[in-house]
């Protein structure tokens, strides 16, 4: 495959992730799901990138907001939706729903709905790999809320002490439930925090999927060669927010998307949710024309709907 064809393939994967979530959101608005789903609109770049760098021996461990990673790894949107519908045909036979969804055949080995819980389990997976001298790394996804938990620090200390190659991805969307960082805690300089443990740190903030793939590839090599955990902070914006008018906020209070359907997002052929770098698809305009992206988005949506409906 040529370099340009590879680039387009990545774009198609981004679009698939976006359009699939729009379909899920539309079904959610109609009350199709009883399980809580945490959409990750705007998180597509890191999910596609991480999936791209995963080798056969790598293992991915997720948190409650895992739809983007699962969709990036799953072959069929229908099996994932069937899981949300708790059908026997679902990805986990309807046993796990959304927040604990795994796909062991594609390397997603554990997901937890409890903040910080998956960090400790990831350390155990990495320890088992180390004991058996297995190839590959463990990748674990957490967020700016979960790093407030003691398990974040504990697991890093354990991994560093035992020379375990683990890539810790911190999706920082600033929000935990309905509170922004400045509403709930002091600033945490993650780079400084982990440097105190001699753990390499990198921030990925461009929302550029190609750049993320290159940087994550390099970080994976560092983790394996130095036998160390590495921390990757990914500032991003969860798209799908809205304003809610209340007696206290007659002009509308900003509500960040946490879980449930996003009322401000509709199923549409136009894939963009923001005309800024908050949207990884907008960032793709560095490489593709707007028309090309829109054309591929319409094709992707049609294919997905055909497969699902």
């Amino acid at each position, binding site marked *: 495959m040529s370099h340009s064809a590879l680039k387009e393939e990545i774009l198609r994967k981004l679009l698939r992730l976006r359009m699939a979530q729009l379909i899920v959101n539309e079904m959610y608005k109609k009350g199709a799901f009883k399980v809580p789903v945490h959409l990750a609109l705007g998180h597509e770049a890191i999910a596609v990138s991480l999936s791209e760098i995963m080798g056969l021996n790598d*293992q991915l461990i997720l948190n409650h907001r895992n739809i983007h990673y699962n969709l990036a790894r799953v072959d069929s949107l229908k099996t994932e939706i069937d899981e949300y519908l708790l059908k026997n045909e679902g990805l986990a036979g309807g*046993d*796990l729903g959304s927040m*604990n969804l795994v796909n062991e055949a594609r390397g997603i*080995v*554990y997901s*937890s*709905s*409890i903040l*910080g*819980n998956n*960090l*400790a*389990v*990831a*350390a*155990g*997976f*990495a*320890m*088992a*790999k*180390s*004991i*058996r001298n297995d190839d590959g790394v463990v990748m674990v996804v957490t967020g700016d809320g979960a790093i407030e938990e*003691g*398990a974040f620090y*504990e*697991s890093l*200390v*354990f991994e560093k*002490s*035992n020379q375990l190659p683990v890539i810790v991805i911190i999706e920082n969307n600033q929000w935990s439930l309905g509170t922004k960082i400045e509403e709930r805690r002091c600033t945490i300089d993650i780079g400084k925090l982990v440097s105190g443990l001699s753990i390499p740190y990198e921030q990925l903030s461009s929302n550029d999927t190609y750049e993320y793939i290159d940087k994550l590839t390099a970080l994976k090599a560092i983790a394996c060669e130095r036998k160390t955990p590495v921390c990757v902070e990914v500032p991003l914006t969860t798209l799908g927010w809205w304003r809610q008018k209340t007696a206290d906020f007659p002009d509308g209070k900003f509500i960040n998307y946490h879980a449930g359907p996003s009322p401000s997002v509709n199923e549409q052929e136009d894939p963009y949710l923001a005309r800024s770098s908050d949207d990884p698809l907008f960032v793709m305009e560095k490489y593709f024309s707007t028309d090309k992206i829109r054309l591929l988005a319409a094709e992707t949506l049609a294919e997905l709907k055909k497969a699902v409906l």
Partner: protein
Amino acid sequence: MKYIEYINEILKQKVLEPEHLFIFGQNVSAGSCISGFTRGLKVKPGGRIVNTPNCENTLCGVGFGAMMNGVDAIFFMKQQDFLLLGIDQLVNTYNIVRRNNPKASFTIMPVIVDSGYEGPQSALNNFADFCSIARIPGYTITNKIDAQEIINKHLIAPGFRIIAISQRLFKTELIDIPCVYMNKDRSLFQYFQGQDVTIACFNLSLPYGLEIHRRMRENNIQASVFSINAAMPISWDEIVEDVQRTKRVIIIDDSKSVNVPYQSLLCALYAQGSMEKHVLVKRSYEGYWCRPHHDQLDIDYDKVISDLNIQGIGVINK
């Protein structure tokens, strides 16, 4: 031989079996180890023994992660109290793990500090309460037979469980008595069979039950003695059958648990209908019962025996 010395001996043999065993915990292979517990453990070259940092929550998750990734793991810990820090993993992660019947093993072996005088925060003698939060299979060790059987059957076996040992018994002489019956799960052991009374010992109370048995025998009262080494309710068929013959039961529970399996036994006995008299030996709670004090049961053995109202058998009603 002392209780803890024998447990170490059994452990030493067992942990040499797997190719890739991961043993971990604070101080497991340093200094005095865990006050003597885990002293001298060695694993095959493909395994690993790790003295860990102090991070019980993460350590519980590490054990589950290793198990899910196919490596047998044992987490030894100094006190069950510290395991409270790992409750998220013990409940939430275990509830995921149990879905797939894992092929590898994860066992936590804590010491139950039932020796007393540790203070309000270090005396969690609540093993049944603890296991009840996620229906965790839990086993206690009191003597030579159950140490041998429980460690050999459960220490390294697919799935998760907690095997607890007693601080109180650490330096006592190992109880070495013949066993007349043990169930398949090694959660129920019978040590004596008698015609007059059934003694059912829960948690780590077998030594008390044996003392009652000894005193009864001096008075020509023949008692059956069972030890229930499970923290969760089990099948009570053997005990119910015994009570059909004896009609009288002494139940002993030396734990501080509220969710206790003996209540399940009592229900089974009431439902069966043969039990005419029972005596329950358990803790009483008065005043600020958490202040440092000894943790042993103060049992008035003569009263326990006389409360059974056994007529015409020996001289027991003092």
